[in-house]
């Protein structure tokens, strides 16, 4: 059964709020460092950077529903999920800047964050490609008879790819403990959900695999997401896969090269509508309704998160770049079973 809101203490909720603020600030800092930072040495560069501002309640609420030994995996819109899972902001920022100290040693970048110690299995950039990986991780859980579950985030657009069908069906046949959580932000790049599928109510696809049709939860409300995902994870542990949706919206373009909100008035309008349901606004309203006199807390949170992000940037900026030895490291696992050097370059 879902943990009820009432059982979440003020302290917990404030911590979550702080984490959500951090995620937003992290994303905004990434945008700044990509577009506006004047000092070349402090910039984030490259072609792919997918911000998740607007999705924070989905990321935080869902990840908080996991136990420490549960597993989480996602696509390329992965910064917030890493932070929610407790990966250090400075190691993440260093990865954005392609530094040796980054979570992936500067070799993965924004789309390929991962942190093994917290079972954050990574961000993946081939749409749908991580879904069977989730199936495989869940298979290991069942194989070893472990009590854990896997949470797999995916986009609405991804649900039309062959990987979705095969991965969900296989997990269903094997009765694996996975929650498939669609972050339904109504669009994949520029394609609206009505144009990408004959069944825009994606949870209905659960029936195609005989698995539990989970809810379409309000993705702007962190508590609702948390409760729904927690319930889904419990179901998954006991009875196998669940397909659920969190309805949300991204406040930025698809990626850094996307100017859709500048170009289209109808979208600008839609964006404004959704901004009134900004997950931070919704969360703050809930806190203010429940508790009195949080102003000091908010001030502290503002200051602490600013500092965390600023420290992360300084850490990243001052970290060394990877060198030739990093370039050629980890192409293969070192192995006595291999004759000669497999990396003859």
């Amino acid at each position, binding site marked *: 059964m879902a943990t009820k809101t009432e059982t979440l203490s003020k302290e917990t909720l404030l911590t979550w709020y702080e984490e959500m603020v951090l995620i937003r600030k992290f994303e905004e800092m990434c945008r700044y460092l990509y577009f506006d930072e004047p000092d070349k040495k402090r910039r984030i560069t490259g072609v*792919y950077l997918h911000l998740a501002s607007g999705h924070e309640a989905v990321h935080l609420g869902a990840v908080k529903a996991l136990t420490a030994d549960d597993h989480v995996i996602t696509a390329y819109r992965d910064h917030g999920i890493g932070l929610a899972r407790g990966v250090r902001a400075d190691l993440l920022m260093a990865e954005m800047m392609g530094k040796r100290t980054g979570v992936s040693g500067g070799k993965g970048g924004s789309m*390929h964050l991962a942190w093994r110690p917290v079972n954050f299995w990574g961000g993946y950039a081939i749409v749908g490609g991580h879904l069977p990986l989730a199936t495989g991780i869940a298979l290991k859980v069942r194989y070893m008879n472990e009590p854990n579950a896997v949470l797999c985030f995916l986009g609405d*657009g991804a649900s039309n790819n062959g990987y979705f069908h095969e991965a969900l069906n296989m997990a269903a046949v094997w009765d694996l403990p996975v929650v498939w959580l669609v972050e339904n932000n109504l669009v994949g790049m520029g394609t609206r959900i009505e144009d*990408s599928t004959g069944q825009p109510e994606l949870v209905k696809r659960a029936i195609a695999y005989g698995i539990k049709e989970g809810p379409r939860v309000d993705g702007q409300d962190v508590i609702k997401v948390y409760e729904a995902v927690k319930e889904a994870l419990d179901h998954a542990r006991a009875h196998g896969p669940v397909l659920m949706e969190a309805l949300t919206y991204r406040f930025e373009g698809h990626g850094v090269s996307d100017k859709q909100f500048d170009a289209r008035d109808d979208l600008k309008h839609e964006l404004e509508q959704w901004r009134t349901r900004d997950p931070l606004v919704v969360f703050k309203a809930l806190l203010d309704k429940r508790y009195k006199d949080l102003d000091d807390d908010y001030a502290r949170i503002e200051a602490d998160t600013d500092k965390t992000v600023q420290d992360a940037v300084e850490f990243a900026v001052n970290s060394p770049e990877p060198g030739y030895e990093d370039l050629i490291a980890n192409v293969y696992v070192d192995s006595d079973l291999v004759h000669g050097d497999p990396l003859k370059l």
Partner: protein
Amino acid sequence: MKNMSMRDALRAALHEEMLRDETVFVMGEEVGRWQGTHRVTRGLYDEFGARRVRDTPISEMAIAGAAVGAAMAGLRPVAELMTINFAFLSLDAMVNHAAKIHYMFNGQFKVPLVYRAATGWGNQATATHSHSPEPIFAHFPGMFLGVPSNAYDAKGMLKTAIRDDNPVLFTEVIALYPKPSPIPDEEYLIPIGQGDIKRPGTDVTIVTYGRGVEWSLDAAGILAKEGVEAEVVDVRWLRPLDLPLILSSFKKTNRCVVVEESLPMYSFGSEIAAQLQEAAFDYMDAPIKRVHAMDLPLPYARTIELMALPNAQKVVDAVREVL
């Protein structure tokens, strides 16, 4: 005659062919309302509408396969796979169906389609989004494969690919999209399988395609200052390969460097070197050298990414080795 970027030249080719033949249509992810991920299809949706500029779901297997069906049935799809990285998901439909249906059913069906995909690496696109794997697609008979190295070629090659009755995989180097060349006002076609001498020379033959042409021309410029005249052969098509052109150059220079953006093993350089040593053994004054990316997945960090990639200097160094 006017200057056009490769992006605009490709768009012009699509536009002209769509005007010319109502059965030509465009399909793929984001090609329509979104105006194309790389903006090659910009404006086409507005002009031709949803019937002829068809947005698809994120479904590379079905994009590739539906194009085959539509082509068999008499249309001329130009199906965009966005980037060649995602075409790995289309390999089966391309190899087992696009490339084989004409043969397997003994000519009963034709498959006049073009698959378009952006290709190339660089700009920190990272391992999963950094491929230039033309050779693995060109390994299979039944489908042609073209890669233009400039705007002029791009336009003529794409128009031919659309008109030809065979399936064609057409990859477009992202880094070349913005680069301009002069484009004649009159229509022109560039035959499938015809290579091109991009710079005449007498001392060494550089065989290349796509982005390699730029590096090779830059290298030839540097070498010219040292009195070395390099001939740069742009094969333009990996299948069919213009072997006669390569051979005639090599028989003149007796030395060769092969330059490609891709990985070294079982690749373009391998094939060219193998062909030349076999067909022109007596003309070889030195071993044929290969310039290519390092044999590893590409990392994100810019500094080390650049170390892994080929460039003009690496071409110069290789040429010096064979002189």
